[in-house]
């Protein structure tokens, strides 16, 4: 018997996400079961106590989201996971985390349809909700893994970004990626970078909790219980953390929330380019659809068609720059996505008419097969 990679294992995407969280230092999980995300909770219920962490099944998704924010304020890296219906319920408190700048990671394993929809059927239908699901203006970071290995590594990255920018980071899995099992190599401890929130350097009496100390505009964050007594609120507030009705203060607060992310774009944006150098047709894909698109690229190239792919790893903020540069070069863009048209409109808005943009939009619980993409390529070439 020929056992080659002893570190290689077969692992499910959801499990890899859970293990990635532990690797990243997550020590708190609160959740409420929902297909197709439940395995994340189940793995962490078992694993967290083994590393001294806490797992709690809350009464619902609203409470779960609240609990991870509370936990994070004590310094615990915290996570919750859910799917569409639960993601909708978490929106209010997700907005709280954005406004009060509490790091945490929220996993949404996307399933089909609005409402209960098709609970076991895959989809990529929550992409726009990830951006706009909570009320009011707010920035967000959302990441989409395309393999089990990435479920692990991007979860680590999600925690890093969350701690770095004091913002909830969304891991937008889809049912295909969450439930499929494939080969993964678990990185050794220390192999991946781990980022922790910046702590205040001043004495408690000097601490102004929401006052940025550098150009990043991300204020250092004290944990509850460390002697820095401060106030956290979901009201718009000034740098001291106390609410204000002043338009100047409220406007500044909202602007800074966005601006800190804008300034961090170079750290946040992740894309992968596949054979884009000479591409005439660019596929823009993410999540499980990037796998189908990758196959399409391969088969199209085999036929001599110049096709490339821009894989969106970061979905929000949207990788506009990378896309715009490619839009200068290609003749057409095709966006295959498992929904009825979400990212395709964002792509359109970003390329501003420079090249024609086509969607392949399908929301029936099936992954869009390479064949359909290949057909479209034929059509636009």
């Amino acid at each position, binding site marked *: 018997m020929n056992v080659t990679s002893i570190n290689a294992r077969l692992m499910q995407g959801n499990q890899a996400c859970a293990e990635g969280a532990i690797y990243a230092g997550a*020590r708190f999980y609160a959740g409420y079961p929902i297909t197709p995300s439940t395995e994340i909770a189940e793995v962490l219920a078992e694993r967290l*106590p*083994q590393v*001294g962490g806490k797992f709690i099944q809350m*009464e619902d998704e609203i409470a779960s989201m609240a609990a991870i924010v509370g936990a994070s304020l004590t310094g615990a890296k915290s996570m919750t996971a859910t799917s569409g219906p639960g993601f909708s319920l978490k929106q209010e408190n997700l907005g709280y985390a954005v406004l009060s700048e509490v790091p945490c990671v929220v996993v949404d394993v996307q399933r089909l349809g609005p409402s209960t929809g098709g609970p076991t059927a895959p989809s990529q239908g929550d992409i726009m909700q990830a951006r706009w699901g909570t009320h009011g203006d707010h920035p967000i970071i959302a990441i989409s893994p395309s393999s089990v290995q990435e479920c692990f590594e991007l979860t680590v990255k999600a925690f890093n970004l969350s701690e770095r920018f004091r913002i909830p980071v969304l891991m937008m899995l889809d049912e295909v990626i969450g439930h499929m099992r494939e080969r993964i190599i678990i990185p050794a401890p220390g192999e991946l970078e781990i980022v922790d929130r910046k702590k205040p350097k001043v004495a408690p009496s000097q601490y102004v909790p929401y006052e940025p100390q550098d150009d990043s505009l991300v204020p250092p964050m004290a944990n*509850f*219980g460390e*002697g820095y007594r401060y106030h*956290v609120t979901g009201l718009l507030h000034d740098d001291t953390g106390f609410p204000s009705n002043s338009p100047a203060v409220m406007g500044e607060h909202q602007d800074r929330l966005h601006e800190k992310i804008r300034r961090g774009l170079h750290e946040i944006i992740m894309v992968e380019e596949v054979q884009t150098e000479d591409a005439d047709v660019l596929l823009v894909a993410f999540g499980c659809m990037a796998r189908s698109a990758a196959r399409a690229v391969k088969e199209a190239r085999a036929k001599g068609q110049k096709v490339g792919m821009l894989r969106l790893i970061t979905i929000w903020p949207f990788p506009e720059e990378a896309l715009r540069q490619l839009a200068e070069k290609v003749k057409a863009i095709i966006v295959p996505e498992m929904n009825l048209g979400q990212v395709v409109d964002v792509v359109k808005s970003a390329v501003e008419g420079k090249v024609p943009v086509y969607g392949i939009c399908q929301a029936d619980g099936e992954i869009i097969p390479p064949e359909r993409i290949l057909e479209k390529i034929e059509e636009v070439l």
Partner: protein
Amino acid sequence: MFAEIEQYFRTERLPHIWCPGCTNGIIVKSIVEAIQKAGLDQDKTVIVSGIGCSSRATGYLNFNTLHTTHGRALAFASGVKLANPELNVFVITGDGDCTSIGGNHFIHSARRNMDLNVILFNNNIYGMTGGQYSPMSPSGAKATTAPYGNIERPFDICNLAIAAGATYVARGNSFNTRQLTDIIYNGIANKGFSFVEAIASCPVYYGRKNKLGNAADMLKWQRDNCITKEAADRLPLEKKQGKVVTGILHHEPAPEYTTEYQKIIDKFQGGEES
């Protein structure tokens, strides 16, 4: 008293936003006195609130304070406490915040018996939004959304807490501040979910809508209509009719959530398989 105020309040933020004669301020002082009596470290104490007039209290208190979303204070607080059980965690909430939108978190927190100290400011109305009826508005009461009188029956929230599993349940009011401080203090001593209903008055909305007189009149109503459990136990039924019973109504310790969780960690930490 000014010295204690200086120590426990963010005096630079006073006077608070509450209306003249609102008794929220009185109840907050009792909380602070109970904390002082219990000798809790301010740095190790977290006070969590929801949204409502009463929930604005956290902004004035010199602790780690967390003003959350409407109804969710207990869920946030559960995260704080479980993540770091060394922290003393208090929850300040209103009758709407706790029993209406937050009712589910309330019964589940009581059931789990996490070591949280909850003080419900019961003014029988949604104050912050301007006087709508709450699940604790008496039947027949007037409110902006009950112009013809409330046809719902109010919760006996202490009973509900007991049925849901709370291990310590007490009721006080903003007139009898000594009792209120005492029952909060005793709740702190209970290792588990401790619940105190504090009867408050909202002269501006509840009082005005229901013609209950001015702020002082409403406080006097509390004085004249509450009897302690000890007194009630001695009285014949007919004399208790219509009276509100205060004091410690229930105390029955049970295993505390974070303690039980720690046992699991102690047993399985480092292990790979269960």
